[in-house]
């Protein structure tokens, strides 16, 4: 523990943390990956050898200090090692979203001027080759999986293994240079550059220094007492800051093991096999899991259903209290214990959540029922609020103070300020250095004293000191009569219904609010099966009369609930339609992290919005769609527009006047 006691000061880079881990817990597992049906594992000592060999190989290829090296692929140990090997050389890793299109990659690769690209497989190689002509600075491409690449021109293409092997061969003459570069790494060196998906405009390269990452990893690991024995499953995009913090920052700081799934499709099985103790998932994952549990319970035998419902009622009442350490009667504890034996335990085991000690969700608001369901089962699920620019953590919920409608108290070392406009500002050791080659945006976001604008509007709850987020600051607007308009607030309420996957509410500067709805094909499809409703496609189901009626019911319930909020009662949805296609990142309607791109949707479906604010009961539309392989097609549809009942809001109107 000698190094530990020196604190972050002695350990100023990820490669330095690697050294410490290899020395102190050399035999402990650092990485696992399921391959060929078996979990293959690497200890910290083996990991260091692998990373050093690759770093030497890259050095041999001519990677210089300050170079940018793009890393593209799904979560695999080799790609994590690539990032650390690049850091070891004083160069900067730039992970990219693996599902990005060739054009999106082109923009980023040009912007950062990457000389080297490390990719997972043929698919990614092909994408880079597609845009190669525009990348004069690109020198070498290194790939992991040789499959299908045998006959490609290998003039500037190399296998990962070969690079590592070459590195091992040249350890003798290049070792000294590597050691020198490694020793030079300091707190102010860039640790990683991450491109934000950006709900508006082109992605921006967020430069995060070693200080940002290590200070944040240290503070957050201590906050949740993360230690060597933790297990995490790395399945979220490597280009996302969260994965970088969890799977590299905290994993190297605390020295725990990162597990990589066999393939994206086997994620749920792998999750069950690993049973992580520290787990992060966006609300969508929890929603999908809950939906599938509920659907499967409906198919279970009568006895099982009764057991489930009985014990879930107990859990909802008792579970969160036990988790928060509040007093619970002995009888209730006994009842809950029996439930654990019969229902909760097996259920958590099936979900792969049986060992979760710390679980986080963030990115979007999570529905209170969903949140409470997991907490009732005894899973310590908490919320955090973060941004790429903050190295993730801005606020998080401490154990015992967990609620579904707040995002917690400021993380250790973070200061929060609410501006007059309601926008949330923060300052912390994790605050990013700059947007790469974009001084203007840097100045717009971060002021000279280091305060960063989140772009979100919110307030601090006086009683608890917790932060509550209302909406994106730029989306918060006023309606024609001056009433506050916060679309996300209403959309979240809509999305809490399992049948609604996505909602987009319009109304800024208008008299009334209207909405686009996307149904959830799994939930609604199952309901359709149960009710003998035949359908051939998403579009057909979305246009079905009874689906419309059902959604109308949901919208009206939401209106009733919105009407109770004095500030936002003007945001009730008067008219809505169910979109004929699912909003999709490939069509630019969502970001790669699945956030709604309001402006683009507004422009793309102008005709539909006009119809919502018109008088007609239906509208004909044509939409261009992009298939996964990049081809484009058109779909046409006639959509029905429904009027929803609204609750009169005289009180709020009067207040506005």
């Amino acid at each position, binding site marked *: 523990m000698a190094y530990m006691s020196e604190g972050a000061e002695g350990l100023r880079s990820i490669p330095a943390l690697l050294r410490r881990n290899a020395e102190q817990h050399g035999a402990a597992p650092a990485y696992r990956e399921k*391959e*060929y*049906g*078996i979990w293959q594992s690497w200890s910290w000592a083996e990991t260091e050898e692998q990373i050093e060999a690759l770093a030497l190989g890259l050095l041999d290829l001519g990677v210089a200090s300050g170079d940018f090296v793009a890393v593209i692929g799904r979560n695999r140990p080799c790609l994590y090692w690539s990032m650390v090997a690049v850091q070891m050389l004083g160069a900067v890793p730039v992970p990219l979203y693996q599902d990005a299109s060739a054009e999106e990659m082109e923009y980023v690769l040009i912007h950062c001027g990457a000389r080297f690209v490390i990719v997972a497989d043929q698919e990614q190689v*092909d994408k880079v080759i597609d845009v190669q002509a525009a990348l004069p600075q690109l020198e070498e491409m290194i790939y992991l999986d040789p*499959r*299908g690449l*045998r*006959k*490609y021109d290998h003039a500037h293409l190399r296998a990962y293994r070969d690079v590592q092997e070459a590195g091992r061969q040249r350890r003798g003459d290049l070792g000294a240079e590597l050691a020198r570069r490694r020793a030079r790494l300091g707190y102010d060196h860039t640790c990683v550059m991450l491109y934000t998906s950006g709900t508006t405009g082109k992605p921006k390269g967020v430069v995060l220094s070693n200080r940002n990452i290590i200070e944040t990893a240290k503070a957050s690991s201590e906050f949740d007492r993360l230690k060597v024995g933790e297990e995490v499953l790395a399945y979220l995009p490597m280009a996302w800051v969260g994965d970088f913090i969890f799977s590299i920052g905290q994993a190297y700081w605390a020295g725990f093991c990162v597990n990589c799934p*066999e*393939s994206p*499709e*086997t994620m749920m*099985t792998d999750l069950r096999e690993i049973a992580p103790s520290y787990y992060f998932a966006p609300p969508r994952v929890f929603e999908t899991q809950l939906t599938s549990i509920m659907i499967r319970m409906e198919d279970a035998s009568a006895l099982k259903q009764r057991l489930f419902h009985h014990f879930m009622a107990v859990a909802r009442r008792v579970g969160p209290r036990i988790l928060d350490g509040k007093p619970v009667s002995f009888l209730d504890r006994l009842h809950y214990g029996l439930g654990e034996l019969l229902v909760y335990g097996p259920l958590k085991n099936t979900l792969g959540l049986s060992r979760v000690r710390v679980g986080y969700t963030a990115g979007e608001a999570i529905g209170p029922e969903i949140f409470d369901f997991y907490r009732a089962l005894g899973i310590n699920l908490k919320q955090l609020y973060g941004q790429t620019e903050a190295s993730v953590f801005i606020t998080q919920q401490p154990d015992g103070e967990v609620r579904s409608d707040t995002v917690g108290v400021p993380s250790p070392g973070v200061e929060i300020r609410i501006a007059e406009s309601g926008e949330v500002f923060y300052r912390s050791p994790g605050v990013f250095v700059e947007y790469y080659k974009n001084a203007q945006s840097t100045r717009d976001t971060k002021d000279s004293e280091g305060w960063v604008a989140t772009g979100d509007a919110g307030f601090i709850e006086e009683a608890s000191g917790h932060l509550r987020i209302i909406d994106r600051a730029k989306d918060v607007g006023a309606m024609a009569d001056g009433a506050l308009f916060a679309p996300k607030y209403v959309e979240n309420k809509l999305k809490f219904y399992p049948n609604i996957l996505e909602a987009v509410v319009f109304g800024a500067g208008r008299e009334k609010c209207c909405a686009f709805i996307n149904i959830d094909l799994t939930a609604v499809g199952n309901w359709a099966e149960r009710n003998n409703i035949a359908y051939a496609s998403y579009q057909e189901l979305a246009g079905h009369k009874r689906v419309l009626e059902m959604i109308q019911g949901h919208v009206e319930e939401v209106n009733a609930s919105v009407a109770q909020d004095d500030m936002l009662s003007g945001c009730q949805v008067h008219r809505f339609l169910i979109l004929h296609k699912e909003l999709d990142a490939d069509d630019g309607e969502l970001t790669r992290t699945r956030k709604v791109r309001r402006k683009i949707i507004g422009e793309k479906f102008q005709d539909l919005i006009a119809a919502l604010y018109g008088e007609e009961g239906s509208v004909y539309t044509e939409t261009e769609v992009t298939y996964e*392989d990049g081809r484009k097609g058109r779909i046409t549809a006639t959509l029905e527009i429904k009027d929803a009942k609204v609750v009169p809001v005289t009180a709020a109107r009067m207040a506005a006047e």
Partner: protein
Amino acid sequence: MLDDTKPASAGQTVTDIALMELQNITLRFGGVVAINDISFDIRQGEVRAIIGPNGAGKSSMLNIISGFYTPSEGQILYKGAPRPAMRPYEVARTGVARTFQNIALFEGMTVLDNVMTGRLTHMNAGIFSQALWLGKARNEEIANREIVEKVIDFLEIQNIRKTPVGRLSYGLKKRVELARALAAEPSILLLDEPMAGMNVEEKEDMSRFILDVNDEFGTTIALIEHDMGVVMDLSDRVVVMDYGKKIGDGTPDEVRNNQDVIDAYLGVAH
């Protein structure tokens, strides 16, 4: 997609050495002549397609290669030596594996178990040591499982490894059949209409797997297929049959421009 991969693969793994030569093959069922004096060869490392209208005798030809039928006349040279009349399981042991036009998998067994059956010809442990799970049987099982897992990884079916085959879609079953055939590590792989009944996306996937198999393992492939686009993109050489006779043989381009072939496909007044 197929267009991109084809030019790169032409002429590298393909050799001029004939792996299998079929010489003057005739097959009769009573008075019906299913195959009439056909000769062609399959070269080491190539993708060889057999095409022709319905009833041309393509499947019979494949059945002769796999040993299911014994030709009435003619002989087969395999790896340079004449092949005697053999039973299908004996042929399989010589390194010939196949998939079937109508899927022939064990529906109640998992994908893994089905693919493991492809290793049958490589298992030598006796019934006694297998029943008692003795060292030899155990080691053999582990070695075989390793090869099977590589095939599963190659064909990207890890997520259905433990799923009973009966629950899979048609396209996936076809892929499992290919996996089972590959698990046998064949020197020649026979595919009987690998794309029949598939949608465009499944066809593209399957085409890629076939090319990758040929490319990665250097496996010689003989396939029957109706989709002309697929045949022309995938294969190095094509044999065309009609009414049991060979009417064309050559590269896809040669065959495409062959008048007899055009007549057979488009019909002509006799």
